[in-house]
């Protein structure tokens, strides 16, 4: 039997608890569309409560007999106190469906009558702005339950994605599935270099990474990954290839050969695990577009590697503000907040399946935070409010990693972790080598490039090695 507003009204009154009746009547008024008669009944109930003598079901049945008797469902048993909330939700869903159906029919007939495109956009926007509620009929399972090996289950989560810098993992742990990680920096602060190192590091370890390039061409990014691959595998400084040499077409024949060899080595070894799509190849104007795109990438990985996506890198979030979502937003940050929310859902329940992935959102730092972090006392020490535009990042991110290009020391970035749900925040920013000309994050693995205090004090590294 379908419940009706009438059943709910009578069921609420039957509870006979003035406080409860008052709360539920307010909820009813807020959530449902009421008829004139229902509004009058609500008014009577409220007045009777205000004078300290709540009306009875008999009173309503008697005074509004024409209304009650017309409702055949009411003849059945009234709802118990525990069922009233879910019955209100059911009716709300039903009312919304009816309203949507009506609006769609009206829109359909208006479209036929050559509706102006802007009006059409606005009407579609209005339609999509309806919050379609659903009622979960299944009671969720309690997560706290007896397990044979709870520790193994918790530590299995630790098998997440790696960061290009191990010291980040010392503080924040690995990037575990089901989380959104933010990588934030000011303009020119090595965001994209970090992103490509992140993609490269994980692809090299057999993880399936989708790298969505929204602000550059795929060709440029591939060139950068190749230069980084050369830097990662070089054992001698003479093997390194500077990005500016490639840009200016100044490579010598043997360097060109080396570059091509490394390019193909990269494609052969890691190509199956690293999918790089630039904005020219993408359709991401709306959330369904993005979902389709993620599904395509997932299917491609499954076909190539037998396993779906492990991580998605969005480089960078702020470019999604130009997406064509017709809902009216008062400022661009709102669109970005919606995207952050969308990716958080994807991380937790990828493609609405019971799967989790890691989403890395590359984002911009606001100017005020950059100025503050440029002061000697606070150098590189961004705080959690540093994100430009999308403040939803502060809440949704499991880990926030900030990068500050140190202008006092060449090839150096200061990494701070102002938020770490599974770890700790470092006392001071972590100083990390970052080579823009090799698109490489972290130390170079060159012979004789590293020096320790012992090497220095024992004269294994001499002043002559430092002053050349």
């Amino acid at each position, binding site marked *: 039997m379908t419940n009706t507003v009438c059943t709910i009204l009578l069921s609420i009154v039957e509870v006979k608890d003035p406080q409860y009746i008052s709360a539920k009547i307010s909820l009813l008024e807020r959530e449902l569309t009421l008829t004139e008669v229902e509004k009058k009944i609500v008014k009577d109930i409220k007045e009777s409560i205000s004078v300290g003598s709540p009306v009875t079901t008999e009173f309503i049945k008697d005074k509004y007999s024409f209304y009650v008797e017309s409702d055949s469902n009411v003849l059945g048993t009234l709802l118990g106190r525990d069922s009233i909330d879910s019955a209100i939700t059911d009716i709300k869903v039903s009312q919304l469906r009816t309203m949507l159906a009506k609006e769609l029919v009206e829109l359909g007939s208006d479209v036929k009558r050559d509706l102006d495109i802007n009006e059409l956009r606005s009407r579609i926007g209005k339609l999509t702005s309806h919050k379609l509620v659903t009622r979960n009929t299944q009671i969720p399972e309690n997560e706290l339950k007896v397990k044979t090996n709870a520790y193994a289950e918790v530590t299995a989560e630790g098998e997440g994605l790696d960061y290009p*810098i*191990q*010291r980040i993992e010392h503080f924040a742990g690995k990037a575990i599935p089901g989380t959104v990680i933010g990588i934030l920096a000011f303009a020119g602060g090595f965001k994209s270099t970090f992103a490509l190192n992140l993609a490269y590091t994980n692809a090299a370890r057999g993880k399936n990474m989708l790298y969505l390039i929204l602000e550059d061409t795929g060709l440029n990014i591939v060139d950068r990954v190749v230069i980084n691959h050369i830097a990662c595998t070089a054992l001698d400084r003479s093997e390194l290839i500077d990005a500016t040499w490639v840009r200016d077409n100044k490579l010598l024949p043997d360097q060109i050969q080396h570059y091509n060899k490394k390019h193909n080595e990269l494609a052969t070894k890691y190509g199956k695990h690293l999918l790089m799509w630039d904005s020219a190849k993408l359709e991401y104007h709306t959330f369904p577009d993005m979902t389709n795109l993620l599904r395509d990438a997932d299917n491609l990985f499954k076909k190539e590697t037998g396993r779906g996506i492990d991580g998605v890198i969005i480089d960078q979030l702020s470019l999604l503000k130009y997406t064509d979502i017709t809902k009216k937003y008062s400022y661009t940050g709102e669109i970005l907040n919606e995207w952050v929310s969308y990716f958080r859902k994807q991380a937790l329940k990828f493609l609405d399946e019971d799967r989790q992935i890691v989403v890395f959102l590359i984002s911009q730092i606001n100017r005020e935070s950059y100025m503050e972090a440029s*002061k*000697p*006392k606070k*150098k590189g020490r961004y705080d959690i409010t540093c994100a430009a535009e999308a403040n939803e990042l502060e809440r949704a991110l499991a880990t926030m990693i900030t990068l500050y290009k140190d202008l*006092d*020391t*060449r*090839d*150096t970035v200061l990494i701070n972790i102002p938020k770490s749900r599974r770890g700790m925040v470092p006392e001071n920013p972590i*100083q990390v*080598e970052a080579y823009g000309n090799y698109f490489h994050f*972290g*130390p*170079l*693995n060159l012979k*004789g*490039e*590293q*020096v*320790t*205090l012992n090497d*220095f*004090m024992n004269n294994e*590294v001499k*002043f*002559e*090695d*430092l*002053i*050349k």
Partner: protein
Amino acid sequence: METINALSITQLSNKYTALVSGDKFKFLEELKLAKSLLDPHAIAYAPALIYSSGIRNAICYYLGTYFSLKMNEILDYVVITGRQFVDQIFLPSDIRDHQLVDRVFNTGITFIILSQFDYNNQFLESTLIDLIESRTLDKKATIILYEITDSKTAHSLTKKIEDYFIANKLTIINLVGNALNAAVKPPNPKPSMQTTATDNTQKPKNKRIL
């Protein structure tokens, strides 16, 4: 691949290259001399008063490199004369170089170069003591390098700051002559702790005289 407790030679070299003064080979000799005379364990990334003569840049270079390797971080530094610092502090706010003063207070290592020519302000030493106090609270090293040009007047000029170092058990190292007892190694140097005071009655472990 990251090596824990290691730094890039190239980055270290780049960082302190501005301190390389004059002829490269002569500077290398000065560096070797500084390394042979100065036991940086005695300083332990804490305030120190060093008397030296003619090798101040080499001392700054050596300590900068040593502290960076010790802290596993290439440390920023400022080298400033005592006079320049005090002048800045007492300048009206609108013409003060705030960025410079901010760096002196907050950078990784601050080297204050003193000589008899810096003593033209009665507040010099108390201002320097304030600086040391502030930086010590932030666990940062402040090195006062007194360049001795006239050993007769040096210690009478620095008496106030020397008394402060002795009272607070901070390191005083003399690399010049017999004016003070030479460097004394602290009993238990710890990075976060203040180290040692010169004890004239104690026999120095490493007597270093230029």
